[in-house]
């Protein structure tokens, strides 16, 4: 593995990374400890504000919705779905994207052409439309949503990883290892993959914000995790009927989505900046 140029920098995060990490940590805490943190049951009616959402108050800091549910509790519980779907879908995205990218970049030739043309075909289809079609066909549920998001968002990862793998596999140390008789599997796993890892980390962070947004989008289109499970996208969708009289119903879950997406983006961009690269070079 290539040594760090400056070992002392190893654990020093820059501001963007620190802020991003703190935000993501906050999100994770909200998700894991939701039952302890949420003041109320997110599914049951806790106030009699049926059809007439109540504005923020001391008892309900973010108000209650048209079914008498506490908005704050729903947002805290919503972090579970967002984080679980966002991260799991990202893991799936990476698994598919990295495998295809590494194979194409390292093996080259016909395999590369075949895999990359397939990727191009997938890229021509808008992710949201494809996801909508898939969710409609499959049974709605958490598993479906994360599976579908993973299946439609791996293309970018595959392209970036391929480019990186292509460059790395022409480097001297790989050529040297090959000359020493290392098998392709060993070359990929021991020499190419570790050197592609930084870019994968960045893709993971930036991509998670993408999957989070896609999840929120699907929920907004009522194709996400079915009720009663609280999800931010659906909270916004359900509050459209009240956008003039009770805007807070849409604003707070909107801010929650913004927060989560920003956290992961800061983490990814901060890491890139530390390594002296910009997202546009990905």
């Amino acid at each position, binding site marked *: 593995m290539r040594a760090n140029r400056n070992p002392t920098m190893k654990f020093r995060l820059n501001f963007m990374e620190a802020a991003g990490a703190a935000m993501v940590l906050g999100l994770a805490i909200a998700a894991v400890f939701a039952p302890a943190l949420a003041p109320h049951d997110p*599914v*049951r*009616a806790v106030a009699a504000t*049926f*059809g*007439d959402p109540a504005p923020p108050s001391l008892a309900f800091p973010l108000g209650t919705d*048209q*079914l008498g549910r506490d908005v704050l509790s729903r947002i805290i519980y919503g972090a579970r779905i967002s984080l679980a779907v966002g991260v799991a879908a990202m893991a799936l995205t990476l698994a598919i994207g990295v495998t295809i990218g590494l194979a194409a970049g390292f093996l080259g030739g016909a395999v590369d052409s075949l895999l990359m043309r397939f990727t191009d075909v997938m890229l021509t289809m808008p992710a949201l439309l494809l996801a909508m079609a898939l969710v409609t066909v499959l049974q709605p549920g958490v598993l479906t949503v994360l599976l579908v998001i993973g299946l439609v968002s791996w293309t970018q990862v595959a392209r970036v990883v391929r480019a990186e793998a292509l460059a790395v596999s022409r480097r001297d140390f790989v050529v040297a290892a090959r000359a020493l008789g290392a098998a392709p599997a060993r070359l990929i796993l021991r020499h190419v993959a570790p050197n592609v890892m930084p870019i994968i980390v960045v893709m993971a962070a930036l991509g998670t914000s993408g999957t989070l947004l896609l999840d929120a989008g699907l929920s*907004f*289109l*009522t194709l996400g995790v*079915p*009720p*009663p499970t609280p999800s931010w996208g659906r909270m916004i*969708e*359900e509050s*459209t*009927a*009240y*956008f*003039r*009289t*009770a805007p807070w119903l849409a604003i707070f879950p909107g801010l929650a989505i913004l927060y989560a997406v920003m956290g992961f983006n800061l983490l990814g961009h901060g890491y890139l900046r530390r390594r002296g690269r910009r997202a546009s070079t990905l």
Partner: protein
Amino acid sequence: MAPTCAIFPRWRRLRRFRPFPIRVAAALLAALILPACHAGSAPPIFPPGAQVLQLASLDDVPTLDPAAGYDVDSWMFEQMLFDTLIRYSDAGVDLVPDLATAWTAAPDSAVFTFHLRRDARFTNGRLVTSADFKFAIERVLDPKTRSKGMEYYRGIAGAADFAAGRAKSVAGIETPDPWTIVFRLNAPDPIFPHKLAMPFAAAVPREVVARYGEDFSRHVVGSGPFMLRQWIGGQRIVLVRNPGYFVKGAPRLDGVIEAIGVSEDLQWFRFEAGAIDLSAIPPAVFPYVVKTPRLNALTMRIVTMTTRYLGMNCRMPPFTDVRVRRALNYAVNKRKLVAVINGRGIPANGVLPPSLPGYDPTLPGYPYDPARARTLLAQAGYAHGFAATLWMPADQTMMILGQSVQQDLALVGVNLRLKPVAFAPFLEAIRQPQTVPLFFSGWEADFPDPANFLEVLLSRAQWGANNDSWFYDPRFDTLLAEAAPIANPARRYAIYREAQRIAVANAPWVFLYFPVTWEIRQPWMHGLVLNPMRPARLDRVWLSAHPPAK
């Protein structure tokens, strides 16, 4: 009229499946495109200062042919263009003369005689006679016309022979002179006059139908208060005043223009700009309208002859057990449901809505009582509850209502999975046996009689058709058969009340609520009266001076 997914049925339209985000997107897109399209529209049909009512709608009118139309949009226009023998009063469901001046029923309700007025003309100048009514009904009965109204006139003597091609005309419709028409029925049917008040039975001129055939819808000639002036498919429909209309001083409007392709949300923007005179109130602004005194003062509301229910499939466990069905009735908080739809409904005590003759105000229904629901469930062997799937038309408001029911039932241990389905497949599914255990449904009256609810929705004969809960009770069916030929309202309704009590006790549905329709009109629009069962009539509407649209 048909099972409907409308939560807030409008005087204008049945609300169909239309996912909200797509509506918003369409509205935004249209808002960007439309102003450009409308700059410099068609040459003026009306002189400056004419009284022209501006309306807007998303979908085009399906048809203007009275034999074909069977939806709110078509009927709204058909009743402006054509006349029936009798019709409903503007605000009620009592029958009043239209082209008939008087009518008599034989004591056995099997023969009906109508006398026509002698001064009504089609807009082509010809007098309307009894032969035109006979022709109209024969046209509906003719299988070649493929009219959805056929079933309503099959009870006329000789109708079957005519439909089968064994007779040149319907023997049971007699026209002894141009101003008299007599209907003889195979069996007593006291509600037959209501069937003549449906637009299917409106007078149409034979010569015009013969000339245009299937294209009659585009070249309609009637005797109603308005005439068709222009109909550009998908764009607009323009009616002008019929100067020869037999009611003196009507209509007060010079014309009506309906712009087509305008989504509900866009209708609202146009209404706020003063460009249309009457609008439905989309859910997205309803709370705002109610809370804004200026707008609230312009709203009109009416309890429609509609019922909303949560159907339970009586042939699918656990709903085969009446205790489970009753338990669900106690477990669902109907007042909460009505509050969730911003009060646009009345909690239901049974099948029949309060505006319907024969309504039973003494029926207690099922109050909200979760403790009792739990007891009943325990008695039925479901002390720990059960899981079930609730089917519903995919619609934003339906999903909210579904979640409200989901909340309520969770409190008694019943875990619901919500299954939103597009409206057409939803209708198809609930007609299949052993398919849909639990579902949201509703019914709008065709005519104001309990039979139109009890018989259509709950009789054994309607299994696989409109009896979507697959309910069957022999005593209930016997009572329906007993009531059907009785003309005396008091006796007739007494039997139907008895039947309704059986249905409510057996609880094939969770009786949810009777919807209230809301409309909003401009301050300069006068004379509009909403009807609980039919689209509002526009012949007495007039407009006072008002500023031009912004």
